[in-house]
């Protein structure tokens, strides 16, 4: 039997002007996994935060493996009020971007939510690359994802798309 579409864009946004938050809401529960692709630049030094279900309580933790072009390192954070991804600030110079992907597995299930992030920023002489696993200790299905820029804003030209992936 031929399956229907199994990798579908749910929503997408391209910022025409600076914005402090990108929100995906009313996410249907009909998929198996979610994938968010964020290509972002900051208007000033800023560290993005990812919040699920508009829940900013201390239910987030992460383990991170990072390469900065010189050395590899690993860090961990627990009892956080968001996923702090990436660990480094967004680039701010014109025509520079950070590529961040987030795979949220079994987002509509009734178990804690595991998220796999990748962070890729190369600035021709600086930057970092990282793989981050996050845990959101809530059994509620994910219906909303907020990506907050942090202290500053996302610059115009930042793009974000959320895809739904079906297992069958």
């Amino acid at each position, binding site marked *: 039997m031929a399956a229907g579409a199994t990798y579908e864009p749910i929503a*997408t946004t391209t910022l025409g002007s600076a914005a402090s938050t990108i929100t995906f809401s009313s996410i249907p529960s009909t998929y198996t996994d979610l994938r968010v692709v964020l290509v972002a630049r900051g208007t000033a030094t800023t560290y993005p935060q990812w919040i699920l279900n508009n829940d900013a309580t201390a239910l987030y933790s992460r383990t991170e493996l990072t390469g900065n072009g010189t050395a590899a390192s690993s860090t961990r954070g627990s009892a956080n009020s968001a996923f702090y991804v990436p660990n480094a600030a967004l680039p701010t110079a014109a025509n520079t*971007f950070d590529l961040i992907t987030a795979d949220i597995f079994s987002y509509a299930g009734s178990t804690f939510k595991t998220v796999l992030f990748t962070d*890729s920023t190369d600035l021709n002489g600086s930057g970092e690359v990282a793989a981050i696993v996050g845990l959101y200790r809530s059994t509620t299905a994910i219906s909303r994802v907020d990506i907050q820029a942090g202290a500053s804003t996302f610059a115009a030209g930042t793009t974000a798309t959320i895809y739904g992936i079906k297992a069958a």
Partner: protein
Amino acid sequence: MANTYTLIASNTLTGSQTSVTFSSIPSTYTDLLLRYSARSTGASLVLRFYTNSGTPASTFSYTSLIGNGAAASSSRNSAQSYWLDTNGLPASTYTANTFNNGDLYIPNYAVSATKVASNFSVTETNATTAYIELDANLKGTTETVTQLYIETANGFAVGSSFYLYGIKNS
């Protein structure tokens, strides 16, 4: 709903060759994904990716994070002529039937902006030589990606495969 994850082209090698080319890539998608599985015909040599013939040299750069089963390390290369999968493909002397497998993801490839990309590749051989690698890539020019070249000096072994997908965000 229109198909939003589409195979643009593929190439599974029936003979050894040193490069694979995807040309005339349509600009109608949002992102590109190259999924590859490759092995070398000779010594273990690196995999090189570059886009659009005629692209000025020294406009590619990358930051890498690598684990080899013994240690993790990071490196950086700027002003290059290609992106590199830093660790070598399985050589002809490696455990039989093992391949380097990876994804090269290029978002917003048809937008007039510099191109960021991520490469995630793995090689496991049940031996002492194995790698997991994550690369952050940058192409510092703004033209649309219309061609993608993958090459290795010693040649790709028979059975190496390359799949290019287009992903639409709407």
